């Protein structure tokens, strides 16, 4: 490989059902993103495909398992595997979530991994845990990482710091950046019963310091009778596009991913979503 391909425009997730079209006639994309843990194996087909993708596009490694907010700390095994993958792939970005997953089920019991993105409290103590864990990852990887805001179906009664303030302090103290998931903002606003969810999301965006966002995620959500579920299984909703445009005005044309993880559409549909994001990025870049 002569050098890392240049990044420009929106990216998409690398998904097996799309391999034939993606590798057969590679479309113009800013980058491709994968879940880091899916490539933790020593070898095999998945890793070979990722190496192939790396020849065509910048690759962003997005983790779902570091559990950065876990009071139980990071799993050294996980960190070893992530470091190895970063060395193998040389990703354009490394990110994970502001969540916890590692904890004992009972006092004195073994630490298990929930395999989910569980909500953290927005307190000073939770912030200190997150700062320590993020710094540990960054020291190991010798590079800054991005931390993503969650869609959370539960929150804690004694939260004492607003979520934007939590991220502002996290980024300042740990030296990391933020991965702003606009769809997650919308899901949280809807589930909180916001009168004007778009306005609530824009207020969140406005409360973030302008320089901290290093990537944006867009996705679809599923609205059930009583709750909005962040399922990444449909087109980006109009309200999310509006908040995205607002975020681009505030943060500039930061790299943007269209996430579509369940009920995968035809490749052309996904590309259409990415093209829409790219057009908005281009507009923001020239504004």
């Amino acid at each position: 490989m002569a050098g890392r391909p240049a990044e420009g425009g929106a990216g998409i997730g690398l998904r097996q059902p799309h391999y034939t079209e993606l590798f057969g006639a590679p479309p113009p994309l800013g980058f491709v993103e994968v879940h880091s843990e899916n490539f933790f194996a020593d070898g095999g087909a998945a890793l070979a495909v990722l190496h192939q993708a790396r020849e065509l596009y910048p690759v962003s490694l997005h983790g779902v398992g570091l559990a950065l907010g876990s009071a139980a700390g990071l799993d050294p095994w996980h960190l070893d595997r992530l470091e190895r993958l970063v060395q193998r792939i040389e990703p354009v970005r490394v990110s994970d979530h502001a969540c916890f997953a590692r904890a004992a089920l009972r006092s004195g019991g073994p630490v298990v991994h929930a395999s989910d993105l569980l909500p953290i409290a927005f307190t000073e103590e939770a912030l200190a845990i997150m700062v320590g864990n993020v710094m540990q990852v960054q020291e190991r990887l010798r590079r800054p990482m991005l931390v993503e805001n969650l869609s959370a179906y539960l929150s804690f009664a004694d939260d004492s710091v607003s979520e934007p303030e939590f991220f502002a302090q996290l980024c300042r103290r740990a030296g990391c950046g933020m991965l702003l998931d606009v769809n997650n903002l919308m899901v949280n606003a809807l589930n909180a019963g916001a009168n004007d969810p778009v306005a609530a999301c824009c207020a969140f965006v406005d409360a973030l310091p302008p320089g901290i966002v290093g990537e944006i995620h867009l996705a679809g959500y599923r609205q059930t009778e009583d709750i909005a579920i962040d399922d990444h299984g449909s087109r980006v909703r109009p309200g999310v596009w509006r908040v995205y445009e607002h975020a681009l005005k505030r943060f500039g044309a930061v790299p943007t991913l269209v996430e579509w993880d369940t009920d995968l559409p035809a490749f052309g549909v996904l590309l259409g979503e990415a093209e829409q994001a790219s057009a908005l990025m281009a507009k923001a870049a020239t504004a």
Partner: protein
Amino acid sequence: MNASPEAQRQQALLAAIAGQAALPSIREPQTRAARGLQAYRANAEALAERALGAVFATVQPMVGEENFQRLACELWQAHPPLRGDVGEWGGEFPEWLEAHAAMARWPWLGDCARLDLALHHNERAADAVFDAASLALLESTDPALLSMQLMPGTAVLRSRWPVATIHAAHRVDAAQSEAAFANVRAALDAERGEQVMVVRQGWRAQAVVLTRAEADWADSLLAGTNLSAALERAGEGFDFAAWLATAVHGEWLKDVVVLRD
């Protein structure tokens, strides 16, 4: 040492999702909190079934979708994941399944799960390239000083059940299915056990049926035994030349190595 308040909070929420404790102090009203909790439980149940089904692709259709979903949730509770890569979860399934009272009428399920697991591990094993030049050592060096390394992820299973035949029957298309399952029934009726070697061909793991002598030989190689001792264990019925040709063609062999003291 007492756990910190955040550690206690996280432990409480995880236990609540697992149905083992009440929710910690939550901001949402009760109905809303119950719905949120249910969303996390649904995530865990769906992931358990999906993750286990990806590994135990033969066991899943054998026990049926509904049973498999229940088993996956039970296993998640009994042996929750320890790692953040769900591809690492499920190693306890074969033994756990074997001991499960509801599965007692299918005593071959445990070994079928072991084969599925070996195939899964094989496909995640390190990639390696066959060192053809190392074959020259067979001409120049005392076999008592040599061994052969099989490709990473290679494994041998010995079962009192026809596990490879069962595995194969679940992979044929509809037109061949009837004949394949007739083979399974005949093998079960005859109480025919099988020795199986798991190897990778291309990117896919394959189950290859071995004779007892071939299984002894492969076991010896996997243990790093020298070739003289491995041949002796395999016995007179073992055809080394034929095995070597098959191993090279099938990409089973990594290299020939000189043993150190």
